[in-house]
């Protein structure tokens, strides 16, 4: 028999997946805006951040209510506390997608820069990480979660590559140094998003096994 607690846990699970879909959408659209230099799309992503924030507050409220009213133990407690931590990481990913979009709106003058450097590749890798970390949560897939954690190295390496490329760019063409600095910011944001995806994956592992991997 399903009691009210089970139902609430199910709702928490569904809301968490919904929030995952929101941030996936935000980062995909931000990347799209970055690559195609679409200011309208960038603006949309900045506005969209509010929805992510609202969702975070809603889930946070739900988690606290569950903790207070049901006083869960063991696995249920783990699931709720992991959810509380995960939404923080998800919310940060949403923020960073908005931050990238803000830079996109300033970067318009140098569209040719983007093709030269590895940022699109980095974006692709981070999107994959975010997607898979949420997939791991949905399917309760330990293997996939570990894969995401390992994949963070790829993003980190790409960040180093991008940084070198940008240093080279500044050296050869001082005029573009401002744009290069902005690009470095974008790259850093992607690198951070990768870190948050790693965190999400770690919380997925925690909620399943109760073990912290760090």
């Amino acid at each position, binding site marked *: 028999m399903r009691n009210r607690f089970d139902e609430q846990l199910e709702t928490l699970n569904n809301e968490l*997946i919904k929030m995952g879909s*929101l941030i*996936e959408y935000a980062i995909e659209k931000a990347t799209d805006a970055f690559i195609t230099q679409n200011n309208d799309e960038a603006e949309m992503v900045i506005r969209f951040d509010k929805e992510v924030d609202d969702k975070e507050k809603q889930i946070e409220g739900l988690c606290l209510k569950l903790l207070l009213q049901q006083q869960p133990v063991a696995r249920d407690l783990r699931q709720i506390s992991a959810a509380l931590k995960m939404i923080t990481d998800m919310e940060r990913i949403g923020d960073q997608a908005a931050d990238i979009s803000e830079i996109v709106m300033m970067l318009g003058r140098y569209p040719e820069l983007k093709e030269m450097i590895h940022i699109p590749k980095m974006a692709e890798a981070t999107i994959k990480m975010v997607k898979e970390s949420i997939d791991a949560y949905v399917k309760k897939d330990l293997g996939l979660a570990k894969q995401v954690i390992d994949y963070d190295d790829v993003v980190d390496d790409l960040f180093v590559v991008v940084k070198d490329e940008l240093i080279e760019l500044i050296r050869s063409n001082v005029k573009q140094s401002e744009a290069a600095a902005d690009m470095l910011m974008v790259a850093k944001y992607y690198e951070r998003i990768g870190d948050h995806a790693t965190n999400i994956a770690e919380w997925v592992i925690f909620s399943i096994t109760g073990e912290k991997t760090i």
Partner: protein
Amino acid sequence: MKRRINITFCLGVIGAMLIALFVTAAAFNNLFQKHVLNDLKNYAQKLKETALEGNVDSASELILFSGIRVTLIAGDGKVLFDSETDYLEMENHSDRPEIIEAALKGSGTDIRSSATIGKSTYYYALRLSNGNILRTAKLASNFEPFFRQAVYILVPVMLALVILILILSNLLSKKIIRPIEVLAGNLEDINQIRLYDELVPFARKIKEQQADIQQNMESIRRENNKIHLITRNMSEGIIFLDSQSNILSMNERAVSLLGMDGKTGLGENILNSIRNNEILMAIEKAAQGEHNYVELELEGRQLQFFANPVTDEDVNAGVLCLVLDITEKYNREKLRREFTANVSHELKTPLTSISGYAELIESGMARDEDIKGFAGKIHNESSRLLELINDIIKLSELDEGVPSGEPEEINLLELARDCARSLEKYAQDKRVTIQAEGEELTISGNRRMMHELVYNLAENAIRYNKKDGTVRIKIGRENGKTFILVADTGIGIPAEYQNRIFERFFRVDKSRSKATGGTGLGLSIVKHIAGAHKATLECKSEVGQGTSIKVLFP
């Protein structure tokens, strides 16, 4: 049921026996009392008669041996004689019921029982002619002892009866219930079961209903199958969700279109399989009762996703989603838009120069000696325009897909030579030699279109040739297939553009289009004509070495 039958039977038997016992006991009691009183009465009569006869001896004998107590009471209640007790000590008897009764009616009876000794005393009083009252009394046991004794005998009998009844009722109920049990167990072959008469209509009814149910089930299954078959073969994806967004049903097409994980199945929340925000938003809106749809790109496909609320008596019962693959339509639309943009551009360029030169002449700004040159340019541009419009007309004809005219036998070599001849002058201008060679082969098709095909290929070969280059038109057979090969020694086409050269208005080098002439539609027309004749095109090209295009007929 069996238990109830047993209990009812037992209770019935016990009840019947108890009732019988009490009724007979009451009857016996009554009879016994009557009997004792009667005895007393007879005795009193006899005593009276004996006394009247004056036979005192026999009277006292009677009193002595009968064991019956005899009392003689005066009319005022004073005891005159008693056979057992000292009558002087006895109290006045005028208040005794039997005495009162006898004084009134001539005789009276009474029974007084004593609970302490468990016996009753029966009295009979008789009024004598002198006003005295003769009372006879007898102490007799109460009826209860007899009754108790009877019960001692009856209880074992009753127990035996109960056991017997239990056995009988068990047998009976088994007989009643067994066929019902068998019937319930084998509803399928009702005819094989032996039933008693009362059960037959019942069984018949069950059989009828069973047939009804089977028929209904069959029709439901058929209906279900039909729906399943329809949804499975639909090219659109269908998903039914309940109000909690759990998947109630979906078809394979939806799974493949939305790239869902085949593992997540029915009954699970849609969130577990789809996380596309646009789709989820659409579903959420539909769950709130709003029809809506989104167009989105998913894994390289252009999809239309419709979400409709399903209401049952004004309550949202779920969401019905429809997924359409509009990739082809979208691509066609895109192609059409591009084509329209290209056509407008291509038409506008010559017209701009024509209008410019004409304006110069009109305003008198052109000097007389220039007018001729301007007119030449206007002529050139307008013939280019005409050529373009002709090509567009040809293309739209070919788009209709029906080659006009009956198919006829065409001698390809003759056709090739024909084309070569008509392009001779153009080739000379470009310093290119053109030649047609090969076997005498015929195909069946539309002569005008085939001429157009060879002419276009040859013209392109000349146009994109180098100085002193050659163009070779060859007719031959290869693997049983007739082919036309047009090879040049021209500039060639870079590998990345080779699959795009048949697109409308596609040019490898856009900046040179004006200088080389041509409309950009030639190869597109070739492709369409080849398609209309079910021929295939092969293109081999190397930059700087030349291009060869082969048309292979089936």
